[in-house]
Structures are given as structure tokens and as C-alpha cells.
């Protein structure tokens, strides 16, 4: 039994995230898919915490599980999507999807097979802690940070303009 506590937690988290990610794709009911996706987000947040990136983990939960998935659920509930009224997909579409997805997988595998992935020792790096992250963002990467904030602002203004048009 050479497994440390961290390896056990990693294993359990990974199994849950893979199973729930499969659930997103395989489930017939859109609401179940959304719930599976939320579980996946939580397990990924767990992985972030294992890497000592607490800030990233909690922001991941706030943004994805707390905001985006609520909107997803909102839309699905309003449209009352379910398996019966889902349009039947054509067969050739299914085959095309499977082939292109498979081709993408092959390319990804080929690209990543030779890539070197230096192992991060869990708990040894502090970059994910909020004060370090803040200092890095506002010293080293201040221009990209500000530019991305302008991007968000323009998206917000766009949404308001679209919302106003109907009146």
C-alpha cells in the first residue's frame, strides 16, 4: 500500500469527474446533464484545491457552478426541454460527429504524447494563493489583465444594447 492520502483523494476525484463528465454526454434528460456538469465542476475545483490553488477553486465554483450553470438550468427549465420533444438527429449527422470527434482525439493524443509535463508537487507551489496571484496579475501581467477587462466591459455593453432594442 504505497498510496498517500493525496493520491487516494486524487483517484476518487478523478473517477467522479470522469463518470459525471460521461453523464453529461450520455444522459437523455438535459436537466440531468446540467447537474452532472455541476458535479464535474466541483470535482475540478477539488483538483485545484489539491494543487493549492484555493482562489482558482472558489472562483471556479462561483462563476461556473454559481452563475453560468444557473443560467443554463434557467433556460432549460423555461423551454421545458425533455427527451420526448428532442428533435431526432439524422444518422449521417451522428456518424459525422463520431468521426470528427475521433479524429480530434487522435490529433490531441499525437500532440500531447511527446509533450513534457513537469510534475507539480501538490502543496509545494503557492502561486494559487490569492495574494501571490494578485501580485503576479497586477505587476507582471497588468496590461493583458486590463485589456481583458475592457473585453468584458464591451460584452456587457453589447448585452445591454441587445436588451434595449426590444423596447
Amino acid at each position, binding site marked *: 500500500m504505497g498510496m*498517500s492520502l493525496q493520491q487516494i483523494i486524487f483517484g476518487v476525484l478523478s473517477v467522479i469527474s470522469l463518470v459525471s463528465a460521461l453523464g453529461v454526454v450520455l444522459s437523455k434528460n438535459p436537466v440531468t446533464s446540467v*447537474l452532472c456538469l455541476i458535479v464535474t465542476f466541483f470535482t475540478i475545483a477539488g483538483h485545484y484545491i489539491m494543487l493549492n490553488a484555493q*482562489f482558482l477553486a*472558489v472562483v471556479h465554483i*462561483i462563476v461556473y457552478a*454559481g452563475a453560468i450553470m444557473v443560467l443554463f438550468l*434557467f433556460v432549460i*427549465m423555461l423551454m421545458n426541454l425533455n427527451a420526448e420533444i428532442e428533435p431526432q438527429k439524422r444518422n449521417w449527422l451522428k456518424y459525422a460527429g463520431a468521426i470528427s470527434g475521433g479524429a480530434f482525439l487522435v490529433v490531441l493524443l499525437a500532440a500531447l504524447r511527446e509533450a513534457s509535463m513537469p510534475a507539480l508537487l501538490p502543496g509545494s507551489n503557492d502561486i494559487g494563493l490569492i495574494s501571490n496571484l494578485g501580485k503576479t496579475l497586477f505587476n507582471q501581467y497588468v496590461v493583458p489583465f486590463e485589456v481583458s477587462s475592457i473585453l468584458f466591459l464591451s460584452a456587457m455593453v453589447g448585452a445591454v444594447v441587445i436588451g434595449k432594442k426590444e423596447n
Partner: protein
Amino acid sequence: MTIDWVLILEKILLISGVLVISLVVAMYSTWGERKVAAIMQDRLGPNRAGWIGLLQPLADGGKLFFKEEIIPGTSNRFLFILGPSLAMMVACMTSAVIPWGDTLIIAGHTVSLQIADINIGMLYIFGVVSLGVYGIMLGGWASNNKYSLLASVRAASQIISYELAMGLSLIALVMLTGTLSVKEIVEQQRHGFWNVVYQPLGFILFLICSFAECNRSPFDLPEAENELNGGYHLEYSSMKLGFYLFAEYINMFISSAVMASLYFGGYSFPYMDSLGLDHNLLTILGTVVLFGKTICFIFFFMWVRWTIPRFRYDQLMRLGWNMMIPLALANMLLTGAAILWKQGH
């Protein structure tokens, strides 16, 4: 890797203690609510079960437990049960980062009265708050009833709208204190003024938003019985209904404790360090003071409920988007300007 069994035991005891206290406070909030309502309407309130009706919550709880449980045939069974469970679980989660007191020193061993002093405590609170909507949404949708669905959609849009203003008012507080740890915010207030002195507008915004997040009157649109036949828990009976109602009271208790900690000094009180008391005694006194502040806020929640009528839905949305968010942004800007001015730029 060695596991510190004393620490684990200590945390398990603390977690159980906090959970039990939350449940008891929530239970007696139902009694308190009726008594406050009665006083405000010049009635007596519950006075049959026990002395001044103090056994009433137990009687109510027993009644809820033994009532027949009905799950509608057309509902989604799994989600129908998941809804109230999630509501209850999320309501109990925030208590983990609230410092319920300073440290106790027992036999040379320092015990912190906070379950987890994580350095992102404020973000944790915000994250849990943003998850609170799932219980209501799932329950309302799974009931397969149009009134429940309407109520849950209302709840979702209300909570998302007010979360924004809540986050913005918290950002001003974070800028002022320079930390995201709730314990550190309380410690800063212990050695200085309470944050409400520096952040009066931020506090008022946070207070209004927590009314909306708890679905309390005047923002209790999701359970507007005269429009929606009862709201998102229309199809629920027995203890599942009890869980929804209970989660609301736990939310009220926890958000009162959060407000007391963030803006009103938490477990600290004026001149606490010049009393010359023993450390442990001071800690216990601090915890009692925190509960006192929390109960004041709970009373305020009830006072407002029995004083102010419910908003109309469009008024609620207009207040959230056209008043609260601009005010919160202005507050953030003012705070930033004040901090820069103080730093002498």
C-alpha cells in the same frame, strides 16, 4: 503523513456544535417569528405548548415528521428529493468560515472557535450563497407544477440579480480591510472601529441584498401565496416542506452572523482588551456577544417582515438593477478614492 487526531476530534466536535446550535436557533426563530408578529399585531402568539409557548417548535417539528409524505406521480422523483436536501445542505455550509469566537486554551492546547480559517473566507461565503438557488430551482422544477416552476424561476432571477450588488458591496469592504479572511476582518475591528462606521452605504446594501438572498419579506416573491398558491414548495409535504422552511431560517441566522462579523465587530466588543479578564473567559464572553448581535439582526429581519408589504416583481427587479448596483458601484468608487487619498497619492 501523520494525522493529527486531536485536531480532527476537535473539528468534529466544533462542526457538530455549530450545526446543533444553527438548528436550535432556526427552530426557536420560528417561535420568535410568531411572538414578534403577535407583539406587532397586538396579539398573544403561541402560548399553549409549554411556558410562553416555548415547546411550540418541538410540537411543530413532531407534526411535520409524522405527516403523510406525498411525492406527486408526475414529478421527477430524484430531483424532487434532491431539492430540499440541497437547500438544507447549502444553508448549513456557510457556518464553516464564520469565527464564532476567539481561541480557547484548554490544557495548553489552543482551540480555535472557527471551523476553517481559510484565506478566502469571503469568497467561500459568496460561493455558497451563489449555490443556494439550486435547491429552490430543482425543487420547483421537479414538482411539475406551473406555480412551482414560476416561483422557482422568480427565485432564480431574484437571487442572481441581488448577488451582483451583494458582491459589489463586499468588494468595497475587501478593499478597505485588505483581506478575505473573515477572522482577520473581525480582528481588525477588535483593534479599531467597526466596519459599519467606514462602510455605512455598503452595509445597507449588503443588508438589503441578504433580505433578497434569504427570500425574506419584502422580497419573498418566490412564495407569494396570493399569486402562486404557495410558491416553489407548493407540492411538498411532511419533512421535505419542513426542510425548505427550516433552510430559510438557517439562512437568516447565518446571514445575521455574517453581517455581525463583517460590519459589527463579530465576537469583539468595545473595550474588551482593557477589561483585564482571563483569555478563556473573554473568548466565551465574545461568543455570547456575537450571538447577541446575531439575535438583534434576526429580530430586525422579523420586524421588517411584519412591517413592510411585499414588492411587486417589476419593482423588485428595478430596485436591484437600477438602484442597488449603481449605488454599490458608487460605493466601491468612493472607497477606492478614499483609500488613495489616505495613502497620499
